[in-house]
């Protein structure tokens, strides 16, 4: 993993909090709103102690009104502030979908560039501990398919900090997906004097010559485990790319790798059908067709809402073992 500029280890949740803290100190127009964030500090503890420093005017507990949360944030972003929205679970973005799509994403175009819309919408996605169908979704592909939005999905504490900072400083709307299973992950995190991580740049997490494994969010860790196993058990050198941003995404870094390895596997937790993997695969076919020695393989969840029971939940998750098997089957 990248460790440039890092000085100490933090969890993903702590890194999120630190990003908020630094940005709120840096810019008095940055503020935070959502359910259970002020008194409780966020349902994953990611905002603890912020009200103590910044007050309840800038760390705002809201009613259960997702549509109003996003609409109010849009209105506030249009008029000189930089709101950061917290949605309990990414599944609930559906409750504010109109505000995200028909307002936030379209406003710049509709009004012919009159509006800046410095707005971040944070939404924890993914499966964790049998949270079942309405608390486990990974809907990022919807937002990639929505012109006007940026979409990021950090997999490490360092990226959780750096990408949140970049998202807050961005003048357009950014949908920021955190994976619920990563909040407790520890890793090196840069201190205050380091620049945010630019949106749209991937990270090569591991070098390899034989196959390119492309992923993002939690599945990057499965990809890394798979790469280690492929190396040690099968002497296959996998290059692992963490996209970090899904729109814009870093096709250049990916293409550079594919031109070297000639073999590609894309893995994400979201359903395979209609997932971001399709976009990556189709793009690679368009741009690197002649470099491909084998069909591109996509791994994603099978076509089902996420079931509750642990063996079923486990069954629909993309695992390191599946990645290993799929790479080996590429021949």
């Amino acid at each position: 993993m990248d460790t440039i500029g890092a000085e100490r280890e933090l969890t993903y949740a702590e890194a999120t909090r630190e990003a908020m803290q630094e940005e709120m100190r840096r810019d008095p127009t940055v503020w935070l709103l959502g359910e259970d964030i002020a008194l409780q500090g966020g349902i994953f503890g990611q905002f603890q102690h912020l009200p103590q420093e910044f007050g309840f005017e800038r760390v705002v507990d809201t009613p259960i009104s997702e549509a109003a949360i996003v609409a109010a944030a849009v209105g506030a972003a249009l008029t000189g502030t930089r709101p950061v929205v917290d949605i309990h679970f990414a599944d609930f973005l559906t409750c504010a979908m109109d505000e995200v799509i028909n307002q936030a994403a379209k406003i710049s175009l509709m009004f012919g560039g009159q509006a800046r819309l410095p707005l971040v919408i944070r939404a924890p996605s993914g499966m964790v501990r049998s949270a079942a169908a309405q608390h486990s979704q990974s809907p990022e592909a919807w937002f990639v398919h929505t012109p006007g939005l940026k979409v990021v999905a950090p997999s490490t504490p360092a990226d959780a900090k750096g990408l949140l900072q970049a998202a807050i400083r961005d003048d357009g709307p950014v949908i920021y997906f955190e994976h619920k299973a990563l909040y407790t992950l520890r890793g090196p995190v840069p201190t205050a004097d380091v620049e945010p991580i630019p949106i749209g740049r991937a990270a090569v997490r591991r070098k390899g010559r034989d196959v390119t494994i492309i992923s993002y969010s939690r599945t990057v860790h499965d990809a890394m485990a798979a790469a280690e196993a492929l190396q040690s058990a099968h002497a296959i050198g996998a290059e692992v790319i963490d996209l970090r941003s899904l729109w814009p995404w870093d096709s250049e870094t990916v293409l550079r790798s594919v031109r070297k390895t000639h073999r590609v596997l894309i893995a994400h937790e979201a359903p395979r059908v209609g997932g971001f993997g399709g976009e990556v695969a189709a793009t690679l076919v368009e741009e690197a067709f002649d470099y491909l020695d084998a069909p591109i393989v996509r791994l994603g969840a099978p076509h089902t809402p996420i079931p509750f029971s642990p063996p079923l939940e486990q069954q629909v998750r993309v695992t390191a073992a599946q990645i290993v098997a799929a790479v080996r089957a590429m021949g």
Partner: protein
Amino acid sequence: MATGGDLLPPLAPVARITLWHTMLRIRRFEETVERLFLAGELPGFVHLCIGQEATAAGACAALRIDDYITSTHRGHGHTLAKGADPARMMAELFGKATGVCRGRGGSMHIADFSVGMLGANGIVAGGLGLAAGAAMSIKLRGTAQVALAFFGDGAANRGPFHESLNWAAVYRLPVIFLCEHNQYASTTSARSLTAVEDIADRAVAYAIPSVVVDGNDAEAVYEATRVAVERARSGEGPSLVECKTYRLRGHYVGDPTTYRDREELERWRARDPLLLLEYRLLQEDPTRAEELQRLRAAVEAELEAAVAFARTSPLPEAASALEYAFIG
């Protein structure tokens, strides 16, 4: 309110004991779930309704088995009160193949269509529109059923609350909106983020009748629901029933509940719905103690069997993960 025929009478003594029995079944079910969850036997997340048993028991006592209810994330009590089998419910919480939802739903999506229980809901306020739709279906099919939606004080701030109540009013649907006002929505007190103290006041916005009752008094909940059900069944349209109550546990099992004070908790503990009704029943007739004792034993036996059933049931086969994902 209602003028239609007296479809259900006020409670007879035996029915009041049944009410208490239902509450006890819920209480002990929830305490058992809490213990099992803390022991690591249950996957997922669990929201208990300890302290709120009177709303589930009182409201469902006013319904028939073919009436519909929709529920919330805090739905075990509603499901039990509507008549579901505690063993299959417990198996669901364990994620077992024998669960009411075959292990696919868990606590947050517990449902039993065979007793008209159309599902708990992980989306706050998700059940109100479903109940309005069930009521529309009742009208279309011309049956004498009604639908009842349980929802929380927090849910009353979501758009679907508004759209559903207006909807039910304009079509005069046979539906009852039953608010369990337990003072909190997760960590935030209703007082801080809801513009009115009584959700019942919002009924004015839809020109429908509403009433506020002591939600810890199962008989009062029954009586208010009964009136609303009669109104619905006789074609006079929807009502809003607000029950003031309190959850004696955290929002979810594991919630440190730092957001409320001990004194408030103690005040409500003194008004425990089970103790209230038990006290009343025994004061009227101390000889009932024996029957209550017998029921207590029956509840323990039922629960023990439920847990044993759940524990010994098989988990779903991993290979069956795609079953029910898709209809047709």
